[in-house]
């Protein structure tokens, strides 16, 4: 595999980015004096800062290389991850769940489980979340090493260790605030660094319509081939998309994953916290312009023998994740290459920083303070947060080597999410909206959901059962199996939670005030103009979502 050379100017741009993020870490350290500053960025961010950070925390390796590569592999169906697989959940979080999260002044999602249920449910979720987070952080490291290896021919080990050390330094200096600052810088770098790739691709091919004309129907539509899995690139039915991705995986991730929700917690007031996911939803809907269209452009070019474009190969296998880097190499001259590479690096590093900042919070508050040292002072917790940051980075380094052996980054991510987030969403949904759900019901339901998801994963992986058994169709891709596994895990958690709750002791209602709908006074924002209401913008977002789905049907 031939490495793409960088010019002196490209190196200067990459170097400037590293200096910037490290400099921000040192600059913000002086404002990080308490545990609340370190873990919650002082709860003083505007809706825009919280909203862009909310989105950017999700813009890691998954979004850039994984999604572009998967579009090459599966076609337009990958756009479901951005539309039905994100927007309804983000709006649900903003309108219905954020009032409970924000008004209870919790510091983490497991913290809510402690208040609503009990300590054992909190610790179970904290441990599984911590485990998942370092695994995902490892993916970011792997993806970063892939880019460095692809472009510069750098050694895998050196790439991973250098980037991990940088993240460890700036997150341990100022915690969530530096993670949020670098996430927002990353947001702008990604748009400026990668938007141009798609724009130039469309110019070269002729038009957006021409792109769709040149690819098979199975790759160019969003819903019209979803009734028969053999007719679409992802080999999935609409049922798998709606139930697995659109409902369970999406709601599980966007409404309960502390990595993203933590950014909304950093908002200065309730309205800002509710606006954060709504603002993020607009930019989330726009991301397919870069990653989905980028993947389709790569697909069109690779099908044209005269274009000279091809993806890289590793050991005889197509490396789908090389689609975006190869487009950058095709269009970008020196200077712009530096920007494109920096955008990718920023995406990976900010994604990793996001995972580590969520991990250090959950470890410190929900495991260390909850189980090991209940009387820890603010200064001690601040110290522990910094130690957890370094430890989290080291653990994620180990997981990065495991991530390298999976076929594509995206499949790996979805597998992990369906173990942890899918059942958790059932627990949260029942806990927030039904008052008779009991602590034991939540605990055993969560355990059963997580256990069943993991068991199904192993069963399919080692061929104990056929993939088609869980996907309810004769053919299915790994992605389809992930969607359906998430659905079954959610359903099992939902059912077990309800059944166990019917036979176990309930919490007194007075302890549930502010945590459960029906026992909580509806929080009404101060009278604000229509244009400042989260509900108004949520409706606009939903209308755009519907229009996109109809247009690309």
């Amino acid at each position: 595999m031939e490495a793409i050379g960088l010019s002196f100017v490209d190196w200067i741009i990459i170097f400037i980015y590293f200096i910037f993020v490290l400099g921000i870490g040192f600059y913000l350290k002086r404002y990080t004096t308490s545990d609340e500053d370190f873990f919650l960025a002082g709860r003083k961010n505007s809706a825009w800062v919280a909203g862009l950070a909310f989105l950017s925390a999700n813009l890691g390796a998954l979004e850039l290389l994984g999604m572009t590569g998967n579009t090459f592999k599966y076609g337009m169906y990958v756009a479901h991850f951005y539309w039905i697989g994100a927007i309804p959940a983000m709006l649900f979080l903003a309108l219905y769940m954020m009032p409970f999260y924000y008004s209870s002044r919790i510091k983490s999602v497991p913290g809510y489980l402690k208040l609503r249920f009990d300590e054992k449910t909190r610790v179970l979720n904290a441990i599984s979340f911590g485990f998942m987070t370092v695994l995902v952080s490892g993916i970011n490291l792997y993806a970063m090493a892939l880019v460095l290896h692809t472009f510069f021919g750098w050694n895998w080990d050196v790439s991973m260790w250098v980037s991990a050390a940088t993240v460890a330094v700036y997150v341990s200096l100022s915690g969530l605030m530096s993670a949020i600052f670098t996430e927002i810088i990353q947001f702008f770098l990604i748009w400026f660094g990668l938007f141009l790739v798609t724009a130039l691709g469309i110019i070269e091919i002729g038009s957006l319509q021409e792109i769709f004309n040149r690819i098979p129907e199975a790759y160019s539509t969003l819903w019209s081939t979803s009734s028969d899995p053999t007719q679409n690139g992802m080999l999935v039915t609409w049922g798998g998309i709606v139930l697995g991705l659109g409902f369970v995986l999406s709601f599980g991730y966007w409404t309960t994953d502390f990595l993203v929700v933590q950014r909304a917690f950093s908002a200065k007031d309730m309205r800002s916290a509710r606006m954060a996911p709504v603002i993020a939803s607009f930019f989330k809907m726009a991301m397919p312009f870069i990653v989905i269209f980028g993947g389709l452009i790569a697909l069109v070019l690779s099908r044209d023998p005269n274009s000279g474009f091809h993806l890289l190969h590793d050991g005889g296998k197509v490396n789908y994740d090389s689609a975006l880097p190869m487009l950058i190499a095709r269009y970008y001259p020196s200077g712009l290459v530096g920007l494109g590479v920096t955008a990718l690096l920023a995406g990976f590093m900010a994604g990793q920083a996001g995972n580590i900042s969520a991990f250090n919070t959950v470890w410190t508050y929900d495991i260390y303070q909850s189980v090991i040292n209940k009387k820890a002072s603010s200064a001690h917790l601040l110290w522990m947060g910094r130690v957890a940051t370094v430890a989290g980075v080291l653990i994620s380094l180990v997981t990065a080597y495991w991530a390298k052996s999976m076929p594509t980054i995206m499949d790996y991510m979805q597998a992990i999410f369906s173990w942890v987030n899918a059942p958790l969403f059932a627990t949260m949904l029942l806990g927030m909206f039904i008052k008779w759900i009991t602590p034991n019901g939540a605990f055993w339901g969560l355990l059963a959901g997580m256990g069943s998801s993991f068991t199904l994963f192993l069963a399919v992986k080692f061929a104990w059962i056929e993939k088609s058994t869980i996907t309810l169709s004769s053919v299915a891709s790994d992605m389809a199996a992930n969607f359906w596994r998430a659905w079954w895990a959610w359903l099992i958690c939902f059912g077990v939670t309800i059944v166990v709750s019917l036979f176990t002791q309930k919490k007194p209602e007075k302890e549930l005030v502010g945590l459960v709908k029906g026992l909580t006074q509806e929080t009404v924002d101060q009278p604000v103009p229509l244009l400042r209401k989260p509900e108004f913008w949520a409706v606009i977002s939903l209308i755009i979502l519907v229009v996109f789905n109809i247009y690309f049907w």
Partner: protein
Amino acid sequence: MSKEMKIMKPIWYFVGLMLMTIGGIILITGLYHLFTPRASAKVLAELYPDIWWGGIMLLVGVVFFVLSLRAVAKQTKADR
């Protein structure tokens, strides 16, 4: 904690600085290669994407930078 320390520069200040710096470098590089053509041209090189894209980044960066400085100045005045 001194008064100066209390006023933290907003994120938009850093965004502006970053876009200005990188945009400026890309624009200058593009202009340089306008007169000193590269040995091997990329696809669509005739559109000079580095020149106009670098210019747009620079402009956006200046807007963010100036607006954030004005916001900091306003905040400082209000605190006094």
